């Protein structure tokens, strides 16, 4: 079977577009082939073939989030979209850009920078994460409080249906109500409805000044409560993140130098980062007022960094979850009503695993909290590169399930949801990582059935086993 699938695909697409499976393991399932088509025509030919052969397909951008979602029901072929790497159209004066799905976020921003603009899409590892992947995940980043989710910036999309039929929605203009807004539907659908091949975005001007505050607090709760005050004040930042010791001890090099005066030796202490940008005078005023406000709200020290150092901090806070996750036994992301972030953070902090409390990064402006329960030993886990030995993990199964359940209850209590981003594979196989199905589940299932009647795209990975 393995060779015949590969042989068929080589005949269909040519040897250059079919790759051996190297690191293609997805939640313990190893696909038989990775295809890397050279253009949309080839992707379309491939999808048409795959649907007639009833082959399951897992689209992949940069491959940075392949561990997200439920364990796939099947994973025959990984569809690598990295050759779709053209910036199709960029008009600085229109403040819009149209790009292919395989363009990485970093290369897109580099391309836009000479025009004085950027696209407010955020993802960890922007040098690898692609536009298509970021849209499919649909999540917010460190500045989500200011910029919201990718859905806010997507103005047009081209998608290949599971049969390989090219469709589009939206357009290249920044305001558009012509036809249904399928941009919203595809964003965050984890590749379960179609394969995104091109997207158009509205852009923002790059602010001339940027800066960040590094702030120490006696505890995470102090940090989150003060952050809540700050984000509601006129000195509100673009993004505010309070974090525990296990997170900020990873701050390195230049950033560490900047944080030396903060007195962060205590493991109960918390560090907050607040990010700013804008015109020089207003940004200076905001940061000055913010420092004063945070000090009056219990901060023990505040340090200010500017320009490149602030940019470095922003990249760090964006990437650090992907650094901590492989060393964690369980990672969850909560989205709750912002005002409830402090209470949710405290209650989740009491959910222990093997006696250990979770490390946290809490964003009280957007209402997002990431929780990392550290690995006591090297427990094999899904999403990592090494499946490893499972025996050590099996003993822990029930406590992990309990921790997941308790965290999801907290999220629900505060009007939100909690997604399991990372956990041992044998646990993952027993849960829906997205949590309970909402009362709109029937509509979601009908959507999947209409768009992908053969269930060939990312089968089983999405909410409710979609």
């Amino acid at each position, binding site marked *: 079977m393995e060779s015949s699938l590969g042989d068929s695909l080589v005949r269909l697409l040519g040897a250059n577009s079919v790759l051996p499976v190297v690191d293609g393991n997805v939640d313990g399932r190893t696909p038989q082939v990775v295809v890397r088509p050279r253009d949309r025509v080839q992707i379309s030919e491939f999808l048409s073939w795959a649907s007639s052969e009833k082959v399951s397909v897992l689209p992949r951008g940069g491959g940075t989030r392949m561990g997200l979602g439920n364990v796939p029901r099947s994973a025959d072929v990984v569809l690598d979209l990295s050759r779709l790497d053209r910036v199709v159209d960029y008009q600085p004066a229109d403040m819009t850009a149209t790009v292919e799905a395989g363009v990485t976020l970093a290369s897109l921003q580099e391309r836009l920078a000479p025009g004085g603009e950027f696209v407010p899409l955020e993802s960890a590892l922007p040098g690898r994460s692609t536009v298509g992947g970021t849209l499919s995940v649909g999540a917010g980043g460190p500045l989500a409080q200011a910029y919201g989710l990718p859905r806010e910036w997507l103005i047009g999309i081209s998608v290949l249906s599971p049969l390989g039929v090219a469709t*589009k929605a939206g357009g290249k*203009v920044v305001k558009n109500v*012509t036809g249904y*807004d399928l941009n919203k539907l595809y964003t965050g659908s984890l590749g379960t409805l179609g394969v995104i091949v091109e997207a158009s975005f509205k852009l923002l001007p790059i602010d001339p000044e940027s800066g960040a505050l590094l702030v120490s607090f006696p505890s995470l709760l102090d940090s989150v409560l003060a952050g809540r005050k700050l984000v509601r004040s006129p000195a509100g930042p673009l993004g505010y993140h309070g974090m525990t010791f296990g997170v900020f001890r990873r701050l390195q090099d230049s950033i560490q130098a900047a944080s030396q005066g903060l007195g962060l030796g205590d493991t109960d202490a918390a560090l907050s980062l607040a990010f700013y940008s804008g015109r020089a005078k207003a940004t200076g005023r905001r940061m000055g007022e913010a420092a004063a406000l945070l000090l009056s709200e219990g901060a023990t020290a505040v340090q200010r960094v500017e320009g490149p150092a602030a940019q470095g901090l922003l990249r760090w806070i964006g990437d650090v979850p992907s650094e901590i996750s492989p060393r964690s036994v369980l990672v969850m992301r909560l989205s709750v009503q912002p005002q409830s972030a402090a209470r949710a953070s405290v209650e989740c902090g009491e959910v222990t695993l093997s006696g250990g409390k979770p490390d946290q990064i809490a964003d009280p402006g957007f209402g997002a909290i990431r929780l990392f329960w550290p690995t006591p030993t090297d427990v094999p886990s899904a999403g990592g590169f090494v499946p490893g030995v499972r025996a050590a993990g099996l003993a822990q199964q029930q406590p992990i399930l309990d921790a997941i359940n308790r965290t999801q209850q907290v999220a629900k209590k505060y009007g939100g949801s909690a997604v399991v981003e990372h956990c041992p594979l044998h646990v993952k196989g027993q849960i829906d990582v997205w949590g309970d199905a909402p009362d709109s589940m029937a509509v979601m299932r009908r959507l999947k059935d209409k768009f992908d009647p053969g269930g060939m795209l990312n089968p089983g990975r999405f909410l409710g086993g979609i």
Partner: protein
Amino acid sequence: MTTKQFLTGLQRIVGEENVVFHPDDLLVFEYDGSVDRGLPQAVVFPASTDEVSRVIALAHRAGVPVVGRGTGTGLSGGAITPPGGIQVAFPRMNHILEVDTENRIAFVEPGVINLDLDTHVRKMGLRYAPDPSSQRACSLGGNIAENAGGPHCLAYGTTTNHVLGMEVVLEDGSVINLGSLARETVGYDLRGVFTGSEGTFGIATRIAVRLLPVPESVRTFLGIFPDVESACTAVSAVIEHGIVPAALEMIDALTIQAVQNVSDAGYPDDAGAVLLIELEGLQDEVDEIGGEVEAALWETGATQVRTAEAADEREQLWVGRKGALGALGSIAPNYFLVDGVVPRTKLAQVLGQVAEVSRKYNIPIANVFHAGDGNLHPCLLFDERQPGAIQKIVEAGTEVLQVCVDAGGTLTGEHGVGLEKKEQMPLVFSDDDMAAMLLVRQAFAPDNSLNPGKIFPDGKSHTPRAHPFAPGMTV
């Protein structure tokens, strides 16, 4: 089920006094702000989600199409009832249920008027950002159906960027919740695709919208330009400075003339274009950026620049823009408004082509538009009493849309496709594109009994009628 049984059933659900079915009473529900009409067999005024659910379930069993109606300010025929259909309207579901100032969320019923919500929350230092120019009359439920915009959506986005969650009734009467009070949701973004679905997926009965803080400082600039071209250059110059104003609006010479006919807005007789720019933010930002905006206006050929910060003085600068459509009545008895959008850099070129259409058909066209986001509103002026006038207007309007699409734009920026533009959809979308859209409708409303006959081409011509200059019919 006979018609009588059906009507009696409706009366049982909402009470006799809340079902209208006498032809005289129905006339007012025959039209909206568009050029189309269609008489419903009844209009129902429910008071609760439960009543909406039971009404829709009854209609579904009876095979009767249902149209949700906001306040009828839409300009694309979205609220026009298909033959045999009923309307569900929301004058009784017009309550602001709760304002959560901590989380900056308002919970409202669909009949709440846009401006009433904004006025209410401003007392708490908050605002509801989407501000369609009909905001004195239009409702939040209608805003969701159309994904309404407004002058300030340049900086803040349209309705879809401000709706967090909704309770909606589907065509079989079932009630589901879309979105959530948290900013991230799991599963498909049903709230996102529902917004702007023109009432074809369901009817929103409870809506949670995001509120924003009122900015520390607001400054409005009014620039007078000799012609539209130089005003468009000013728009580009502002954008090139890395400035995204809160609003960026323009009116052309014919509109200026109409405004001056009605009351003196202080525009010179020879003005070719008026550009309005609004900045919001910290005082320091408004000062610094304001200086750049003012310089850009002078550098690009403004003959006059006026600024204001106090609310009443800013209102004075806006008066000409806000009253523009009403003032067009001083030039011709009727207008037909086209809602095309083009990339911002194509504005001047497209306006030139619109002027050619005007000459070709000998129809005066006044332009009132959202220059910042490229959303044109060419108003084709005519007199419905002249034979063949409406047919000529529809042809010229289609040509204007073709010009927009050829420039890389689209059919509608904020008013919706409705009945009016459904036959033009193929200018923008292929059959496959539309087939994908229809899959979503099949998932929400398999029987297509909610607002059927809208958005997608079906070859069935609609019944245009002339536009009355009714109050509230503004953009």
